[in-house]
């Protein structure tokens, strides 16, 4: 994953419906359950647990492979994203969220696929 520059650990923004007590990621203006515009902005926890992951070795044209993908459990919501350090990852590992950007000379296709958040395993559990 050399083309990536890790900017900072961040927390993901999400929406919580106070009526339904359900947290949604990504953020939503309206609760899909009760259809009311009463959503509160909330931050997901700094750390989640690696629920599952894989390594994509056959990807879409123009997208560099291999790359890791994961589902991270933040307690009340599970979020999909890319996984940076998949080589040593194990299910159950503690995972943080990184805001990432491409290096300046990265190909356009990679930039499109890698701007935003990615997951990073920081601690082995068990």
């Amino acid at each position, binding site marked *: 994953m050399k083309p990536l520059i890790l900017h900072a650990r961040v927390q993901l923004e999400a929406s919580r419906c106070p009526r339904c007590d359900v947290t949604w990621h990504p953020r939503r203006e309206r609760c899909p359950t009760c259809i009311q515009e009463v959503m509160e902005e909330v931050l997901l926890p700094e750390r989640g647990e690696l629920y599952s992951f*894989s390594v994509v070795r056959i990807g879409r044209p123009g997208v560099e492979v291999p790359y890791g*993908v994961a589902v991270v459990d933040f307690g009340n919501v599970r979020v999909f994203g890319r996984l940076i350090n998949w080589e040593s990852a194990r299910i159950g590992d503690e995972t943080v969220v990184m805001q990432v950007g491409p290096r300046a000379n990265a190909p356009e296709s990679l930039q499109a696929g890698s701007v935003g958040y990615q997951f990073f395993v920081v601690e082995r559990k068990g």
Partner: protein
Amino acid sequence: MPSERAAILGVGMTKFAKHQGRAFSDLGGEAVRECLKDAGIEWAEIQAVYCGNVLAGMLPGQRIVREFASSDIPVINVENACASAGTALHLATRAIETGQYDAVLALGVEQLSVLGGGLLPQDPEDIEVAQGATLPAAYAMRAKRYIHEYGLRAEQMALVSVKSHRNAAYNPYAHFNQPWTVADVVGSRMVADPLTLYMCCPNSDGAAAAVVTSEKLAKKRTQSPVTVAASVLVSGHFNPGPRDLTRPETTVVASRKAYEEAGVGPEDLDMIECHDAFAIAEILYYEIFGLAPPGEGAALLESGATEIGGRIPVNPSGGLLARGHPIGATGLAQVAEAYWQLTGRAGARQVAGRNTALTHVTGGGISGYDNGACTVHILKRG
């Protein structure tokens, strides 16, 4: 209770393969002609057409139907990803059950070779697809989680593919006719860890069709008609929350509703055609259908119970893995197989029990759903 029961009067399909250079309408037309011949029904008796297709663009059903005389009947085109043909059959069944029509055609057709291979196209605006989600990766993460919770060796998962290919060798309509070994499957190229290429279904071309009529009409033409005892469509529950990757929710709900509608349980089934798009899926579905407790799907497979000669044969046609997967046609290819099995016409892959069959397709690939659509049909003879 519906006012009328629906019956399958006949089925037809093309060989599933790469049909490069063949016209889309020709592919669909072959399945329709075979189906009409099998049902012993004239085109003029067909009152409506439900056509499943995903990627062919505008009016796929009309492009096929116009090859036949007097096509001024309603044609309803149905897109529900890999559950499109299952959805077409669901609509056809309900139209018969409510008395809207006496005889209709359910059709599914897809030509994936025009894509030139590789991954199926998905919505590029989808937040997961935009980040690199692929369909093999979605199932790979199911497999990885399953391995974590229950333990499963690659060699065990490979047995799904080995079984499907062994069965397909006896199926003249199958995309692949060569048996594969565990070593072939495990040693093939890695697509998305832990799924290798031979644990993934091929992109196929093909078409399949069924004539659906009222039971009353079917009884005039055959002594023991195959009836549709359950037809369930579930479109998925949009949920950001704790999705359990080892128990896809749409199949859980659809199979439960189908058992209720048909008044049967897993112990009553003689065979199953399920959506084994990836080898792990068949193991998950054993458990959801109630054939094995959670975590014991692989043991069921290793026991031989799901082989053609076993207690509950699963995918005797070769399934998606070996019969192939022209996505908008698969649901009706499953029904063709179930119909042939129930009427004793499956040749070398004939299963022993000939009373009750279950077919199951799911369509996935968008975020927030385990699957965006799932159909389960239960067919009964007599």
